[in-house]
């Protein structure tokens, strides 16, 4: 592909670079976009039983 064509495609190339970069980062850290599993993140302050224990006592 000629340089002129690549120049004309520069916005798409930049966009693709961002999207693929995002994809690679997600793959490395194990991040699933649009995850059907809803995960709540809490700090237990060191209690091993966890917050959810309270609702099931």
């Amino acid at each position, binding site marked *: 592909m000629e340089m002129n064509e690549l120049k004309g495609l520069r916005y798409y190339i930049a966009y693709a670079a961002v*999207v*693929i970069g995002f*994809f690679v980062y997600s793959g490395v850290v194990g991040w699933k976009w649009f995850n059907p599993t809803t995960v709540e993140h809490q700090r237990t302050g060191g209690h091993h039983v966890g917050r959810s224990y309270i609702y099931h006592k």
Partner: protein
Amino acid sequence: MSGSNYTITCKKCKAENPSRGKAMTIAMACPTCGTYFCVGQWNKDLINFNFSAEPALPIGSKGKFEGFVYEVIGFAIKQETKYHYRWREYLIFNPMRGYAFLSEYNGHWNFIWPVEEGHRRHKSDTDFFHEGHHYRLYQKYRAQVVYARGEFFFDIVGISDSTVNEEFIAPPFLYAVERDNDSLLWCKGEYITRNEVANAFAISVNKLPHKSGMGYTQPFNAGFKDESLIKFSIFLVFILLALQIFFVKSSTEKVVYEKSFYQTDLGDQKFFVTPTFTLEGASESLEIKIRAPLSNDWLFAEFSLINEDTGNEYIFTKDIEYYFGREGGESWTEGSNSGEAFLSEIPAGKYHINIYPEFSVSNHEFHLSVVRDVASMSNFFITIVGLAIFPIAYFIRKHILEQRRWSDSDYSPYATE
């Protein structure tokens, strides 16, 4: 100036008008009385137009194109005889390059020049290929001159009246042929922007008519060819596929904990607690797979993944259901005996899981697997869609603009019966 005193006498008012074209001028509109006449003796018609108009590029103004200075010699407004749309033509001249036209319609300009290379091999009456471009017939028409000013190197009024015109386009280029019994003149044209015309004549672009709609030779100026976009998009898909294969192949999918749980083991407890297990590596995914021997039944559980080092807790739920039956002689099933919960970006460390199950009447057990570093397919498909947005939007926009381009043509490939 050239120092020439060449004048042409108006056949109506007898004014002695200095002539820029000298002996090359065949016809002129008298600057004094406005009458259009032919200089020679073979045509004695005198034409007065019903209205007057000011050319955006004044007669005598000079503009530079491809290194050559052209002077505006004549200006004409032409009207098509069937649909009565009007456009403006400026006859421009350079002694070494000859004459050319600047044609303007709805603020869109074409630079048009006569060519010797007529008689292309016609693939059909409506299109042909030339120099790698596919030219399609845009319009066949007859036109009249409704106004003229300045000088002309031919009887522009007589020729317009007697000729049939065809225009073929391959934006930004066009080929026009003008024919009557005595002549067959081919011209080639190229779209030029208002800014280019303004720059050529060193005038403000605001002095030129404003653009409206899509010019019929206006290129869909993306800066790249369609083929390049398609090739590049395919290239990206391959890159993405390679990356996804890499992520799938390099994911360890290590089962860090696995056990079956029975309701009877719960006793008085509300929840199960798994033993501590270690997650290795850096931040990675974790998948909790649940399987139960369901038979028209369900299982629901709330999970709490607890990091024993930091105290972080990840709370999620998972329910699975499986139903089956027979209706109208055909079997059906709904749901599944197994399900997965996906957790993203779980850092390394020591963990255990608290499981709060809800057993149904008939199901009293389930099997749990905790798998570290599982690749996701959904990111790959979402990325494909994300990358496809650009070329899809490009082709949709191009299609809309092409329809708009051809909307004034009697030969539109988009016309529906």
